[in-house]
């Protein structure tokens, strides 16, 4: 029946593959933070074209399943003349998808700041750029940390989908391992354990940050 040896034996190769799970989700969130900041700024700007663009960006990326986005990007990049390795395409797609959610997180965080603070800064004669970089952003970033950790957990899970474009992360590696050992149950359960382990660590980090940043 259940083979304990296969179950524990799978952890070695799967842990090795977890590098790519962490790479895709880590770089994905980093890219998402950068693009998300621009989209958030566009959404908050007074320029209607930018607002409209941000709204469409967010609505499209949140409305289309990540799996479809991945395949779309995978086939679109070569057509428009960009030849990058599959891993880069995967990271870019995950990052772009995350940017939509992150821009909303930041919009919420900025909205949660008391308006009086930026009004006071302007009244004191700070110029708008300083108000933004010294008053609004530092606080908004701290405020959004728990939500960002949550997003990272979602990305770790979502990174299992990049297995369909051939990235050898935990899910893909477990498929290969299941095919060689003929024991899919044990191998996939081991994969589930690895994801669970990563996410429990991240959830702990999130609780810690929530605790630390609570004023």
């Amino acid at each position, binding site marked *: *029946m*259940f083979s304990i040896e296969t179950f524990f034996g799978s952890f070695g190769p799967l842990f090795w593959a977890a590098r790519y799970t962490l790479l895709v989700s880590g770089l994905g969130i980093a890219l998402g933070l950068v693009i998300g900041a621009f989209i958030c700024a566009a959404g908050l700007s007074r320029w209607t074209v930018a607002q409209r663009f941000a709204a469409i960006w967010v*609505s*499209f990326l*949140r*409305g*289309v*399943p*990540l*799996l*479809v*986005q991945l*395949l*779309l990007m995978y*086939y*679109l990049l070569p*057509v428009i003349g960009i030849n990058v390795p599959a891993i880069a395409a995967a990271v870019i797609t995950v990052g772009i998808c995350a940017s939509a959610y992150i821009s909303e997180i930041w919009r919420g965080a900025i909205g949660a700041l008391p308006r009086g603070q930026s009004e006071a800064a302007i009244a004191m004669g700070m110029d708008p750029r300083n108000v933004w970089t010294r008053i609004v952003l530092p606080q908004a970033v701290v405020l959004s940390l728990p939500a960002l950790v949550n997003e990272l*957990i979602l990305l*770790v*899970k*979502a*990174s*299992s*989908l990049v*297995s*369909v474009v051939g990235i050898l992360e*935990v*899910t893909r590696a*477990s*498929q290969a391992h*299941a095919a060689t050992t003929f*024991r*899919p*149950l*044990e191998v*996939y*359960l081991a*994969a*589930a354990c690895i*994801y*669970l382990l990563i*996410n*429990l660590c991240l*959830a702990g980090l999130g609780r810690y940050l929530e605790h630390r940043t609570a004023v």
Partner: protein
Amino acid sequence: MEWSIFQQYGPMLLRGFAITIFCWLLGTILGMVLGLLIALAQRYGVKPVRWLLQTYIEIIRGTPFLVQLFVLYYGGPLIGLRLDALPAGLLGLTIYGSPYFAEIFRSAFRAVPHGQIEAARAIGMAEPSIIRRILLPLGLVSALPALVNFSIILTKETVILSIITVPELMYQVQRMSTETFRYLEANLVLALFFWGLVELISRAGRRLETRITKHLIERT
């Protein structure tokens, strides 16, 4: 670009779409029912039961849907759970959604003013009828926005079922694109289609929300 393939593959795509909607509706409803049962068991159950359910929630929420499907579909037969792709997919969706729905119901139940339940007890209502007449109606209304929201998220999760060969829309589109080599067009149209579908469902959801919660707004 060659658009006539969509005409040629129309019936196949339509069937795939029907299966997508079927999986989504049934998976959502079953997930909601299971989630509701979990939330009730967590509220009224003994400690070991609550602890067990909490572990279940953490495990399902901490693992990717795709891996859960693999365990169920490819690992299931080893413990005698031999399912076809479609039932396995439905069961997978139900299990995947249930902890999220359970958490939604749990916080909604917590939002029901305690005085209402105490009042019901004081006038001698039995616990089952308190659940049926006080807890559920009040809880469901406050849970509605979150329920709608998560149901929309589930629409997008249905495409993952294509990986375990459930013949839903994504699966049919992939089949079409490998037969015709029109990968880009097929995926582009699929993306636009889902965009429209999700927008449509969220608009309908918002309308449903305002209709059901109207009495709350009028009173305050």
